[in-house]
């Protein structure tokens, strides 16, 4: 009798092991469905999500670099999805996102969904881990319908669409205080030379014109890369910029040296920075979130930072053309290359092909989510390249301006170069070298180090 019971135990163990092994993932393309009827069936905003069936009791884990305060609006914008499908979204934001995502994927603990802000990192993850699942058909259709061809390409690796665009931002903005400008009689500059003349004028009045902060935990240094890219688009033009991003010209090409030196005319000029905080070196230890705040205390006049910086102004700050703060478009340098747009964005990568995950991907790539997110953002600091985004749904003039720029077919748009480069450079050596550059390393050494750090 006893021996039989023993055998039964062994059998149970063996079966349990089989259950734990799980089943292999299938090829994506056709969407998965859970069967049953979705809780929100029949409602117009749920139309696209009905095909995934009843997802009640299931959850989707989202891992992202978007943290407080910007994450609140994100969570609010998922309500429609949760009502439509019955699934819940578990949101987890981290300022160490880029490195931690790799750790988690390697450890077999990948999230269901990750919002990846660097197409370069996306490509690395797709090619090296094979863990990212290709976007299902409904997502691909949405991207074709609502996004421009270039945005589709950023989320595409080796001719397969993996990640649909989520949010976008326009980086070529200079924040300033309209009230202070009116008070002092300063004009918003139309050209780079006007901007330098204005900076000199402000510096002579005893106030440091520029303020900046590049400290960002693990990612310290990234705001400097935006400066370099923005200026390079204006001094060398979009074609040279593309060659530089794809490493068709060396990283320390004369065109790049020229651009970085031009950035240095502002960021490494002790008469210009760092208003309200300290001197040039203090840029390296000032958190990027706090880099522009001295504008509110009239201790600095200008702060170059992307549209999403709007979310960093304290509550009660009026972001408007005649308000406490507003931004002007970074002016052109010379006639030749005009005024290209530097931008960035996040892309929705999935590590699972469960129906609830695919449903969430579909929702995020739709016109419905883009407008829900716009309505859910109380202040400002969010915009998307989704062409179905109603500009009137955006609450802030700065976001409306960004959306107009993004939807303008005439604008020369270029994606943030460091985000397109291999992760070893784009989210590695470029950040650390730019930090060294701020704290005293010269331009040639910095760019030569970056050239040698490019993975062969």
């Amino acid at each position: 009798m006893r021996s039989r019971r023993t055998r039964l135990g062994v059998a149970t163990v063996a079966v349990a092991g089989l259950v734990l092994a799980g089943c292999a993932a299938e090829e994506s393309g056709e969407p998965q469905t859970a069967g049953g009827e979705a809780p929100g069936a029949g409602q117009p905003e749920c139309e696209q999500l009905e095909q995934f069936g009843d997802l009640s009791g299931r959850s989707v884990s989202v891992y992202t670099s978007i943290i407080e305060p910007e994450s609140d609006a994100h969570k609010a914008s998922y309500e429609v999805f949760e009502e439509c499908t019955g699934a819940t979204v578990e949101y987890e934001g981290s300022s160490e996102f880029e490195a931690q995502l790799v750790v988690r994927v390697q450890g077999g603990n990948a999230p269901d969904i990750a919002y990846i802000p660097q197409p370069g990192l996306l490509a690395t993850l797709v090619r090296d881990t094979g863990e990212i699942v290709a976007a299902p058909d409904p997502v691909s259709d949405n991207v074709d319908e609502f996004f421009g061809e270039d945005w589709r390409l950023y989320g595409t690796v080796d001719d397969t669409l993996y990640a649909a665009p989520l949010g976008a931002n326009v980086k070529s903005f200079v924040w300033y205080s309209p009230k202070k400008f009116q008070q002092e009689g300063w004009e918003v500059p139309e050209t780079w030379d006007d901007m330098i003349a204005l900076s000199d004028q402000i510096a002579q009045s005893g106030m440091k014109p520029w303020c900046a902060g590049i400290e960002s935990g693990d990612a310290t240094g990234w705001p400097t890369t935006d400066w370099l890219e923005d200026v390079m688009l204006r001094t060398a033009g979009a074609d040279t910029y593309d060659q530089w991003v794809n490493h068709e010209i060396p990283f320390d090409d004369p065109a790049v040296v020229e651009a970085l030196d031009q950035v240095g005319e502002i960021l490494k000029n002790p008469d210009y920075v760092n208003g309200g905080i300290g001197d040039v070196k203090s840029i390296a230890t000032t958190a990027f979130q706090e880099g522009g705040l001295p504008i509110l205390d009239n201790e600095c006049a200008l702060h170059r930072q992307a549209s999403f910086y709007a979310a960093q102004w304290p509550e009660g700050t009026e972001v408007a053309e005649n308000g406490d703060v507003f931004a002007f478009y970074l002016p052109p340098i010379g006639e030749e290359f005009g005024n290209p747009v530097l931008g960035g964005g996040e892309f929705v990568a999935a590590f699972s092909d469960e129906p609830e995950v695919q449903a969430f991907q579909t929702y995020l790539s739709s016109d419905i989510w883009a407008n829900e997110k716009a309505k859910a953002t109380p202040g400002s600091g969010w915009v998307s390249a989704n062409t179905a985004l109603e500009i009137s749904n955006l609450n802030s003039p700065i976001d409306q301006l960004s959306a107009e720029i993004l939807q303008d077919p005439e604008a020369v748009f270029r994606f943030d170069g460091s985000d397109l480069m291999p992760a070893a450079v784009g989210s590695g050596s470029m950040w650390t070298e730019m930090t060294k550059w701020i704290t005293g390393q010269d331009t040639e050494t910095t760019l030569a180090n970056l050239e040698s750090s490019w993975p062969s």
Partner: protein
Amino acid sequence: MSTSDKLIQMVIAVVLFFAVMTVILLVTQRLRSRSGERIQAAAFVAPALILITIGLLYPAIRTIYQSFFGNAYEPIVGMNPNNFDGFDNYVQIFTDSGLLKVLRNTAIWVILTPILATGIGLVYAVLVDRSRFEKFAKALIFLPMAISLVGASIIWKFVYDYKATEQDQLGVLNALLKLVGVDTYRFLLTEPWNTFFLIVIMVWVQAGFAMTVLSAAIKAIPDDIIEAARLDGVGGLRMFRYITVPSIRPSLIVVLTTISITTLKVFDIVRTATGGQFGTSVLANEFYVQSFRSFDFALGAALAVLIFILVTPIVIYNVRQMRRLEAR
């Protein structure tokens, strides 16, 4: 995977564990002979050994293997045989100027931190020994022990905060400097002194541990030895030099080696306070950066192996001293 799926998996795992143990019990319980008892013991040790092999031995061997490859830009797909590089990664560690600086910083950490922390702990333990406010004084220095290294680094990051002299100061230290009329100082930015200011954080946390162990050792010195020394006219500093220190020598070594091991692995302080910027990076931080930021898993593996090689002799020495202490 939904919550219910996870719960079911958890239940299965727990049941599985009990089932395995039950099977082992049932199979081995009828063995009554001497050799049977050996089999019984082996059966109970086996699961632990298997887990250690999977969780510790295999990754360690794989890391050592990986460190002999070139920049494995396909880190997870596996190691490509034609990517075999021999000792190139190790050569790079000892020739690349940036990595040499990392080695230099690690050396400074490993030499200074144990000496400072143990020294402060020892002097403090002797000074407050049998004084009226001993308990309170010990609690004061022991408190930082309860704070995680990340927490401590954040606290000190505020203490070290820099603003130009004419601005309102946030950092306590710079506020004091301003009060005295000196220019404010960039504690975390100025090489090479910033490494010393990071070491202060570690000392602040570890001194309490050193003090506690050494204080207990001092209290364990037999009274008759101290009496005899007193009768021979030894007092003050000579008592400390010739009686106290030799009597607690084994404890001193254990404290020194334990702090050395902690220091060799230091990562959280550097990463939280400076992110390894401004020439403050150390081995463990560099290993993390190379592996998970730059995707150079092979170089990261080589750095990890180097840490392992450096820690091993200290660990062996530490364990031996511990045994000697317990044998007394």
